[in-house]
């Protein structure tokens, strides 16, 4: 099953402080999985562990396994670059390459990671990715402007386009719509819906309606007390999590009683 990810007792720490612990979780292929939970519970950390980004933080440690397509991505023979090529990520804070042009931002992965490609083919992929990210109309006349000159929400969509352009197996999105207006949010959700036939999505969101709208499965994370590592409290099909959650904490969070 392409794109199938399972974590096994995953834990991660920053300089000795445990941020998440004991996460055993499954992400089905060609589905949208939403991760929800209060701020600081470790959603971003969890997501970064899925594509070997956590290890880039100095002093960070990881325990447990992440199995992707039958292989543990942390096994010694696995190449981090290969893993990241297969599992793309859109970060919580937009991070376009500020000096590169808008077009070069989108094609960066193609030009610098993939094999040689004709200019025409690259231009075609750039246009398609920008359209999918609902940004094409706004930037079609400034493809040569630097990426840093776009607005915050435009930068966020530029990063989405950039991740889509390399066509990974799995796309992890950390609050992809946090800086977007309702119309752009709608378009991004449509894109996710359209692409999930061929991709697997994991999105972190603080917007319960969005989680309910776009996701097929949901996981609720929580750190029980201040300073406690975050854990996956409950996960399952989204309609079950949102209508008849098993755990009290999940129900409280979803109905807005805390967090």
């Amino acid at each position, binding site marked *: 099953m392409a794109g199938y990810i399972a974590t096994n007792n995953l834990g991660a720490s920053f300089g000795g402080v445990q941020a998440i612990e004991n996460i055993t979780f499954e992400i089905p292929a060609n589905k949208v999985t939403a991760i929800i939970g209060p701020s600081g519970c470790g959603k971003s950390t969890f997501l970064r562990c899925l*594509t070997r*980004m956590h290890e*880039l933080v*100095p002093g960070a440690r990881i325990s447990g396994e992440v199995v992707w397509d039958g292989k543990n991505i942390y096994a010694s023979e696995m190449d*981090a*670059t*290969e893993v*990241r*090529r*297969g599992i*793309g*990520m859109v*970060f919580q*804070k937009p*991070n*376009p*390459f*500020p*000096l*590169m042009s808008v077009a070069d931002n989108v094609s*960066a*992965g193609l030009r*610098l*990671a993939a094999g040689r490609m004709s200019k025409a083919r690259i231009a075609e992929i750039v246009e398609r990715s920008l359209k999918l990210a609902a940004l094409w109309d706004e930037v079609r006349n400034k493809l040569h402007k*630097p990426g*840093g000159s776009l607005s915050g929400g435009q930068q966020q969509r530029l*990063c989405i386009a*950039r*991740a889509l352009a*390399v066509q*990974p197996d799995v796309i992890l999105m950390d609050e992809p719509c946090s800086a977007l207006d309702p119309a752009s949010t709608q378009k991004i959700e449509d894109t996710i819906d359209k692409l999930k036939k061929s991709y697997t999505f994991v999105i972190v969101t603080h917007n319960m309606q969005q989680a309910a709208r776009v996701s097929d499965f949901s996981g609720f994370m929580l750190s029980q007390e201040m300073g406690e590592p975050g854990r996956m409290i409950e996960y399952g099909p989204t309609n079950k999590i949102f209508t008849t959650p098993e755990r009290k904490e999940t129900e409280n969070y979803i109905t807005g009683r805390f967090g």
Partner: protein
Amino acid sequence: MSGRLRMQKEEDGAAEQTPRQAPPLTKPAVPSYQPAGKEMENEISRDSELYSQSAVRRRSRKFRSRLAYCLCALSTVIAMVPLVLILFYVIYQGAGDLNLSFLTSLPKPVGESGGGMGNAIAGSLILIGIAAVIGVPLGVLAGTQLAEYRNPRLSCVVRLLSDILSGVPSIIVGIFVYTLLVLTFKQFSAIAGGVALGILMLPTVARTTEEMMRMVPDTLREASLALGIPRWRTITSVIIKTAGGGIMTGVMLATARIAGETAPLLFTALGSRTWPTGLDKPIASLPVQIYQFAISPFDEWHRQAWAGSLVLVLIVLFLSIGSKIFFGRKMKRAS
């Protein structure tokens, strides 16, 4: 809340920007909106406490602020005076003899008037070129190693070495190259001079490269790596490109610094009265020629030395200003 913050900001800003204005006698007004809750009332009472400074204290703060400003301005002026004096004196002394023939012809023997420092200018450019070919790639690579491959032990050693090297007097570097190249090949040469200058460039280039690369935020490294771009491509295509303006500035400043080095050239490149004939032969250079002409007893040569000094100062000035413009443009594009 935001009203309070904004007010505070405006007040500070006014104090800094218009130091000469008389202090306002009235207290800033309490925010005029009428809050509903009890907590908000609390905050307002705290607000007025924050601003209920007496006029005396307010004036004393303004005075201190103005004093600090004046001290800074005074120090700046004092620091600028020697620079401006040197510049004007060199122009005053050198401009008269600076003409096209000075830039393009060989020095004349004693007693004959005319002639120039064309060979020294060409020699200096060649030496700077050799130095850059050696110093820039090595320096950039060392800086990259320091900034990107955070191997604590190796970085510590490299950083220590480059700090020591930047503190070594340039004449010692000259003696080192003299022993290493000149004695070995029994020949003063342009190469030996270029190597000495290149070694002098190394620490500056390495440390600026390191600092500029460290200024590139980690989120950009992550952005690149997350696309499946390999580590080395990330460094060459994303990090060095982003830090490029700063690195260029460092390279130009290092070049400007070595352009005027005299001591290490005295026993490496030696000097010559003819046009450069080969990289394995002694070669003339502006600083050495200026030095030799300046200590000679001939008036004509003294004037030539001044003109040569002016050319050297102009080269250095050009490099410094060029690097500023270059860096400024990069920065503007980045924001």
